[in-house]
């Protein structure tokens, strides 16, 4: 399971303040705690800074990478900001994200083909958000085809089936789960990725719903996830499920995490 740590996002007040003040210690601290909790990538998102987004994102890339030896997940719907941040990134970043929306696809294409990188491909078409499994699979398949046609290896593509709230449409959870299964079967070697918290919008005890959904996504074949790795209950679910799915030889990671005190029951 590839873990993308989601905490460095300026929609969180403490992060926005730290970016505003260019507080290196604080940002590095948040990156380090996620790295120590098992993150494989550190997500950086400065979307709330609007016109200053690109500057802030670049500052985050340099600040985190100067202290932490991990690749970053550059997170923005803004191709210009992603392009600048990608140029400053050392190693292979994860670009989050490209979609079928024509402008976004065209302006990001040169970014993702000009350097080795991992790409999150969001199942969003030109005109609408997907509702059914079928719509997700169709948009995801088209994105995979377009990206591989440009020479991008399947293994570097992470299809995000787009998680939507079950509070609004009770079929939204299962639609995403079935899309994950179908995409993983139809394109052996491709990755699937998603965030969890959208699924629980509008409902109480969201953490419970989120970690239950994580277990179901993993059972459907999800290979990467965007989450808060310092959430011990969530990580405990992730490690337990990974083990139960037969992907943790000798139960090593699960037991290590227990002995290191990084998971809670």
């Amino acid at each position, binding site marked *: 399971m590839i873990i993308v740590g989601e905490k460095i996002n300026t*929609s969180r007040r403490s992060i926005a303040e730290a970016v505003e003040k260019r507080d290196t210690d604080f940002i590095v601290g948040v990156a380090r705690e996620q790295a120590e909790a098992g993150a494989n990538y550190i997500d950086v998102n400065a*979307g*709330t*800074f*609007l016109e200053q*987004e690109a500057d802030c994102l670049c500052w985050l890339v340099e600040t985190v990478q100067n202290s932490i030896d991990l690749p970053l997940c550059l997170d*923005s*719907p*803004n191709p210009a900001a992603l392009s600048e941040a990608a140029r400053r990134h050392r190693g292979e970043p994860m670009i989050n994200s490209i979609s079928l*929306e024509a402008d976004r696809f065209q302006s990001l294409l040169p970014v993702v083909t000009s350097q080795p990188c991992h790409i999150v491909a969001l199942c*969003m078409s030109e*005109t*609408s*958000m997907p509702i059914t499994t079928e719509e997700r699979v169709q948009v995801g398949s088209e994105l995979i085809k377009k990206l591989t046609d440009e020479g991008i290896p399947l293994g570097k593509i992470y299809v995000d089936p787009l998680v*939507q*709230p079950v*509070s*609004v449409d*009770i079929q939204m959870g299962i639609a995403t789960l079935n899309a994950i299964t179908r995409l993983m079967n139809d394109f052996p070697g491709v990755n699937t990725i998603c965030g969890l918290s959208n699924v629980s*919008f*509008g*409902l*109480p005890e969201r953490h419970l719903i989120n970690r239950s959904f994580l277990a179901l996504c993993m059972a459907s074949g999800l290979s990467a996830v965007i989450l808060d790795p310092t959430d011990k209950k969530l990580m405990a679910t992730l490690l337990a499920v990974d083990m139960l799915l037969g992907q943790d030889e000798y139960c090593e990671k699960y037991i290590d995490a227990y002995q290191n005190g990084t998971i809670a029951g």
Partner: protein
Amino acid sequence: MGEYKALNGAVLKGDINTATAEMQKAIDADKNVQDIIDNGLIAAMDEVGERFSKGLLFVPQMLRAAKTMQECMKLIEPLLQKGDVTPKGKVLIGTVRGDLHDIGKNLVSMMMESAGFMITDLGVDVPPEKFVQKAQEVEPDIVAMSALLSTTMPAMPQTIEALGKAGLRAKVKVMIGGAPVTENYAHEIRADAYASDAGSAVSKAKKLLGIS
């Protein structure tokens, strides 16, 4: 609320069978149509919005209550003559240009409709020109805009500017909302109000129009 206690309770719970039966009773008793709508249905939905804003009630319950109200309205609509019901106000709503997110906008639209506003919903990815054109046509009291992406937020001030150029800014109140949108941003772009959720969107709209 007293007179329509059973109807109010059924709408609040989202119990369609009981609500439509109570509604039929009220219609058969020849109650005033506006009175049934205001005190039987809207009063219950106001309570739903209030409880939702306080976190005492959740999105599926809100949707269910609104669905129940819609089913009740279906019983009364064939009987309505023009002018029988006065809307609380007219609202033109849409998700701004470049943005395809509609869940929050739909919840706001639904709760406003349930509160007695007349809604014109332009859908998603609505360019400023479209807001202007439709505003000229329906003459709304409120123009409500939603954005879920920081990249699409700038379409809000652009739409406000377009309303200004068309000479409509003084005639409408502008409300905005969406995950990245804040009260501060509303001030910055000179919107008239910011609402953080569907329940408070209704109370903010009423406040803007001076309705209690």
